[in-house]
């Protein structure tokens, strides 16, 4: 029964991962990625990692929710109402993908891994807790510090009030165009030609 469930989840994860890059709707792409993650979380639960599977479900859901907001904000075709193709170097990407899969599959098939299965009845959650708070506290704290540094870095990178002063984060940036095909702006949006320095490519950011 668990064998069948494992293959169902595994195939669903792979198919969902493939459809992420083949669907036109960006919102669907995000939630297909979420579906792939949920299936991997289910597999981890089947393998016996109780906390790992649940934490994966939780974290990935929140991350995909944040991602869908960014998708709709920045992508050109969020609802997939028009077909589009936004790929580049397709052959290189396909070759690299297949090579990675072939390499991993070769390792999975031919290697002699030690056969030490998870003992039944092991208190995996309690062990994870004591490991995180005990012997591997340094790793845990480093991850925490890295996350704080990331938070600060992300805010600095994206804040309007960058380190150059109030509103300096917007230097060189322009409001979104009205018509991407012609690059036309709504009337009155751009400053007069005499006042502005450079054109669109306002220096290096």
């Amino acid at each position, binding site marked *: 029964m668990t064998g069948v469930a494992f293959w169902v989840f*595994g195939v669903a994860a792979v198919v969902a991962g493939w459809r*992420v890059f083949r669907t036109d709707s960006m919102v669907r792409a995000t939630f297909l990625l979420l579906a792939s993650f949920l299936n*991997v979380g289910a597999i981890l639960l089947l393998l016996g990692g109780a*906390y790992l599977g649940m934490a994966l479900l939780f974290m990935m859901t929140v991350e995909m929710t944040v991602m869908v907001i960014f998708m709709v904000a920045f992508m050109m075709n969020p609802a997939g109402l028009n077909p589009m193709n936004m790929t580049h170097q397709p052959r290189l990407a396909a070759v690299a993908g297949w090579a990675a899969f*072939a390499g*991993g599959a070769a390792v999975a098939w031919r290697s002699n891994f030690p056969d030490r299965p998870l003992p039944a009845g092991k208190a995996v959650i309690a062990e994870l807790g004591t*490991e995180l708070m005990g012997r*591997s506290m340094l790793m845990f704290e480093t991850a925490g510090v890295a996350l704080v540094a990331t938070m600060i870095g992300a805010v600095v990178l994206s804040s309007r009030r960058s380190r150059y002063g109030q509103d300096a984060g917007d230097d060189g940036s322009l409001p979104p165009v009205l018509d991407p095909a012609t690059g036309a702006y709504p009337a009155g949006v751009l400053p007069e030609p005499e006042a502005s320095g450079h054109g669109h490519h306002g220096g290096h950011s």
Partner: protein
Amino acid sequence: MSLTAALLIASALFGLGLWGALGQQSIVMLLMGIELMINGVMLAGGAMWAYAAGGEPKGQLLVVIAMAVMAVEMAVGFAIVVAVYRARQVDLTEGLDSLAR
């Protein structure tokens, strides 16, 4: 449900992620490719922990750290998307080559 099967699925996810990360023009889709790769890594780590490491707690720690890496990658990636969009009004990787000169 053996170690080989789980590692096969993990390699498939990793390969799909690499294909997406290299082939997509949009930075957000590239992020999703990287996420798929880390997804594969987490599955492989969890499978090795359950089948080849006898439930050693450091195996679970590896998966937890991979989750933290994923969070870091997403946060910085989205900040970069915002910064690039402000400068160029599109979130494409085309033309992001100032360091190459």
